């Protein structure tokens, strides 16, 4: 086996520097155009009517009064979105989620939509639509939904794998991973800790609501301007749902005000297109914040049991986790992801994980930054912390003794190649935060986290301008600064300055298919394609220089942004700069460009470890984050400031979830807190500066050693904060968010028992 492929040590000129981001000025001056900042001539306002019931059969919808209202140009229901899925259940589920077909399956499920000349008219029209519902019993809790007596969320709900033929109907899928014999492993352990955990549902909380402008023409062509993480994927799904030809729908991604996975799925875009098709005019559809919370995809609520056995020396002998994730009314992959990641940080002889997707009457679960892994880590890392306490062992030392390294068998199967968890733990060990003394009511928590990366289909084009500057067109949406990172990569390869390269995101007519910016793939995949495209352009540049010099191309090399002739015969020629070659392009063969169309493979995984110091007010249960450290392996940081930004952003989202963020459902199955007042993401004053350390263990699968870094940072925080609070209070926390009422109740409960 060859799993230790070495990456060459490379000297970089641009990569690793921290220039000003290229989209920065537009964003801070308000010029950047987001989803709602685009307008088309004659556009209408689209609004969606949503179910007030968690579960109800739609007996009839009367739209006649709304249609008769002056200024209303189209009213649609599911009848206007016929089933073009051709038996594809996944596609049909998306269609059903965009517009309820027979049943409203959650509070906020779309049942009808209108397009009118202005918002007031559209709002009035919504009020004129009469929906006759037959309200059905609902279930919003994961554990309740698993009970065999629970109401069935989806009439077609069947388990993908049903070996016993007796799984409850709300189970969508069960996945199992692991190796060895866990019972034998527990039998030889010296200490076993077993606990159950619960995590409430959280939303990505992107600041920009979903928004789009859709225009469908009578000839079957269309345009969609939209805030999305993946305009190519949106194009395919929207075209399929509407029965359009994929290539006739042109989708342009706007600037994006955050996505974190929530903008990888279509929600209202097919509705806007259907409204436009019916009205014959462009339609702008912008969700309110309330709609974003009620009707787009939060992450799963979860319920988890963990059992870990260790030797007295702190070596894990056996580990088991049973993870139950809510997936909304449809199918999901969340149990699988939780089961794959739960023990991925540790080299364990006997391990078994079971992940279950549970159907509930809540919005369709969407991806949220390393989906499922944060709550799995919360459960596993909490149990490890308790084991460290019981063994009277430094919790960092416990991680060292079990950490995966090159050649370790992963808990989900394959053997790891070059990975950096041990290097991360070493960086933690030498960090000064560990030496800051703690006072009364203060505690320090540590936790590790893991996430995969994905590669996928990627295209880029590099065009050389007449003055020797370069435009790089990429197709992975820039969510976290990747345009600037790609300019650094192109500048590095071309040997010119960063500010001579401008990177733009191409629309779906400009480039071949690009997979969505998800799975920490944007910088990894697009940099790989960019390097290829620049290498191809350099080949062209060398040919052009050879023509200008009238020498064989083999005698031309590319160095430091210039063509240089080599060999005894021509070696004394002065170099030709990129600008000089570009200027001659019309007379040497025309425009100079390079392209790359690839499937990016060779992904490297990323491990992180976080340290959190807290102070808990024992009288109110309120937690203050005193200090917070993120250490993570980036492989190679193209633009270190953006890598740090990902570390800090992920940590902050995790801290918010750990402390306050949660969906609160009433007994009526309706969401109680669909707004930022009562869905509490952290504000700046809640947080200290998030300290970061970038560890670089290069990924041998990438020319520069890049690993995707975007998701791992949200994996450890729930556990790091929980471990810190547990140590500060002496009471083990098992339910996130650890909001003040929940912490105070836990403290009171511990006093009683």
């Amino acid at each position: 086996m060859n799993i230790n492929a070495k990456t060459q040590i490379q000297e970089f000129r641009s990569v690793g520097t921290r220039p000003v981001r290229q989209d920065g000025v537009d964003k801070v001056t308000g010029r950047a155009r987001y989803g709602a900042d685009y307008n088309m001539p004659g556009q209408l306002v689209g609004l969606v009517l949503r179910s007030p019931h968690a579960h109800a059969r739609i007996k009839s919808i009367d739209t006649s009064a709304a249609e008769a209202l002056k200024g209303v140009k189209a009213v649609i229901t599911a009848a206007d979105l016929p089933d073009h899925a051709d038996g594809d259940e996944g596609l049909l589920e998306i269609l059903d989620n965009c517009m309820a077909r027979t049943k409203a399956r959650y509070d906020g499920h779309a049942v009808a939509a209108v397009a009118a000349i202005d918002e007031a008219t559209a709002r009035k029209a919504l009020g004129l639509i009469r929906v006759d519902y037959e309200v059905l019993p609902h279930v919003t809790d994961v554990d309740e939904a698993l009970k065999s007596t629970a109401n069935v969320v989806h009439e077609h709900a069947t388990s993908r794998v049903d070996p016993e033929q007796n799984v409850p109907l709300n189970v969508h899928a069960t996945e199992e991973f692991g190796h060895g014999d866990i019972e034998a492993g527990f039998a030889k352990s010296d200490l076993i800790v077993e606990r159950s955990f619960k995590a409430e549902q959280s939303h990505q909380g992107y600041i920009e609501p979903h928004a789009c402008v859709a225009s469908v023409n009578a000839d079957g062509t269309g345009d969609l301007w939209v805030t999305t993480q993946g305009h190519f994927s949106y194009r395919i799904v929207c075209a399929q749902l509407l029965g359009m030809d994929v290539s006739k729908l042109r989708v342009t991604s706007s600037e994006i005000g955050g996505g974190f996975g929530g903008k990888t799925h279509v929600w209202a875009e097919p509705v806007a297109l259907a409204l436009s098709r019916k009205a014959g005019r462009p339609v702008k559809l912008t969700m309110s914040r309330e709609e974003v919370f009620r009707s787009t995809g939060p992450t799963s609520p979860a319920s988890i049991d963990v059992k870990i056995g260790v030797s007295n020396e702190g070596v894990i002998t056996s580990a088991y986790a049973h993870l139950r994730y809510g997936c909304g009314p449809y199918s999901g992959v969340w149990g699988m992801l939780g089961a794959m990641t739960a023990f991925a940080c540790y080299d364990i002889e006997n391990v078994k994980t079971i992940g279950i997707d549970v159907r509930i009457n809540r919005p369709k679960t969407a991806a949220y930054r390393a989906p499922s892994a944060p709550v799995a880590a919360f459960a596993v890392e909490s149990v490890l912390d308790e084991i460290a306490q019981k063994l009277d062992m430094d919790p960092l030392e416990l991680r060292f003794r079990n950490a995966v390294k090159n050649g370790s068998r992963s808990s989900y199967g394959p053997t790891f190649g070059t990975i950096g968890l041990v290097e991360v733990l070493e960086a933690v060990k030498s960090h000064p935060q560990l030496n800051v003394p703690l006072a009364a009511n203060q505690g320090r928590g540590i936790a590790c986290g893991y996430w995969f990366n994905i590669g996928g289909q990627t295209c880029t084009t590099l065009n050389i301008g007449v003055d020797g500057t370069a435009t790089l067109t990429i197709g992975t949406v820039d969510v976290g600064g990747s345009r600037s990172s790609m300019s650094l990569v192109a500048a590095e390869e071309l040997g010119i300055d960063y500010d001579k390269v401008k990177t733009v995101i191409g629309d779906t007519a400009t480039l071949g298919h690009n997979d969505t910016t998800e799975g920490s793939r944007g910088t990894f995949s697009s940099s790989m394609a960019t390097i290829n495209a620049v290498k191809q352009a350099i080949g062209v540049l060398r040919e052009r220089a050879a023509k200008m010099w009238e020498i064989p191309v083999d005698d031309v090399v590319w160095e430091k942004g210039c063509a240089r002739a080599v060999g005894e015969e021509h070696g004394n020629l002065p170099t030709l700069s990129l600008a000089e070659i570009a200027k001659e392009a019309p007379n040497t063969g025309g425009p100079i460009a390079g392209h790359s169309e690839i499937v990016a493979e060779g992904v490297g995984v990323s491990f992180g470890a976080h340290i959190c110091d807290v102070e808990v007010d024992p009288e109110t249960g309120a937690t203050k984050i005193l200090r917070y450290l993120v250490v993570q392996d980036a492989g190679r940081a193209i633009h270190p400031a953006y890598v740090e930004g990902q570390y800090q952003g992920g940590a902050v989202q995790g801290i918010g979830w750990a402390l306050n963020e949660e969906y609160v459902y009433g007994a009526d199955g309706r969401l109680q807190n669909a707004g930022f007042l009562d869905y509490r993401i952290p504000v700046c004053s809640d947080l200290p500066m998030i300290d970061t350390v970038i560890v670089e263990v290069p990924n041998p699968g990438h020319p520069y050693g890049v690993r995707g870094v975007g998701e791992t940072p949200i994996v450890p925080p729930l556990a790091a904060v929980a471990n810190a609070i547990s140590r500060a209070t002496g009471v083990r926390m098992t339910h996130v968010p650890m909001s003040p009422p929940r912490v105070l109740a836990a403290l009171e409960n511990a006093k009683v028992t």
Partner: protein
Amino acid sequence: MHYSRPNSVAEAVNLLGGNTGNAFILAGGSDLLVRMKGGFVEPSLIVDIKAIAELRQIRATDKGFWIGAAVTCAELGESEMLRAAWPGVVEAANLIGSKQVQGRCTIAGNLCNASPAADSVPALVAAGARVHIVGPNGSRVTAVEDVPLSPGKTSLAPGEMVAAIELDERPAHASDAYIRFIPRTEMDIAVASAGINLTLDADGTIKTARVALGAVAPTVLRVDEAAEALVGTKLETAALERLAETCSAAARPIDDKRGTIAYRKSVVGVLAKRTAELAYKRARANS
């Protein structure tokens, strides 16, 4: 919908009196505009009082201080004389919303919104503030705690509006404080809160006390029994415990998304203790 921006109180009263529909006063707009945007209210008339000069003033009077209904919370925070005399009222006003909201919102609006969780109201009740109300039948003065009746409902008659809120002069050895609990550090609404105003003897014995609690009942609660627990003490541990107990016992909160009954009853006692300690410390420093 009609929008008007009168220049005098008389003109405003006239507009309100002549309106037969759904009239709303616009001061800072930090509640009204949100409710309009959310589709919860559809005003037929909006009377913007920010152009009425006398409602934009903070004045020292022979009895104390006169705060016009259109004075923003940020302006209260900038008033040195109010900060010195009524630090608890000012700190309550400067907890509302965010910095941006404080630049618009008013304590009169906070009072008339009639939310049990309004931050400035417990502090005003503890301070014994009075409200000047004008209307079609002339003007009247009432205690702050008599304005809110229940969530969203006030005792103002049709056509009436608040013109000003009046606070007493501040004697020596006296001060006030307001503390609320929120899960975040700012931009939030009180889960429970306490406003306390104390007057001491020269030796530190509490002569008079007023205790008001927020977010633990349908309206802000004045708890006289809690105040009695403090009078005659020097805020010893036993007095503080008695204060906490009476406040927790007096609280009649609900279970909702912001907190449970048990949590609010427990925390409001903790807040009362902390607020009393802060007010006492300030009163001792005010010699």
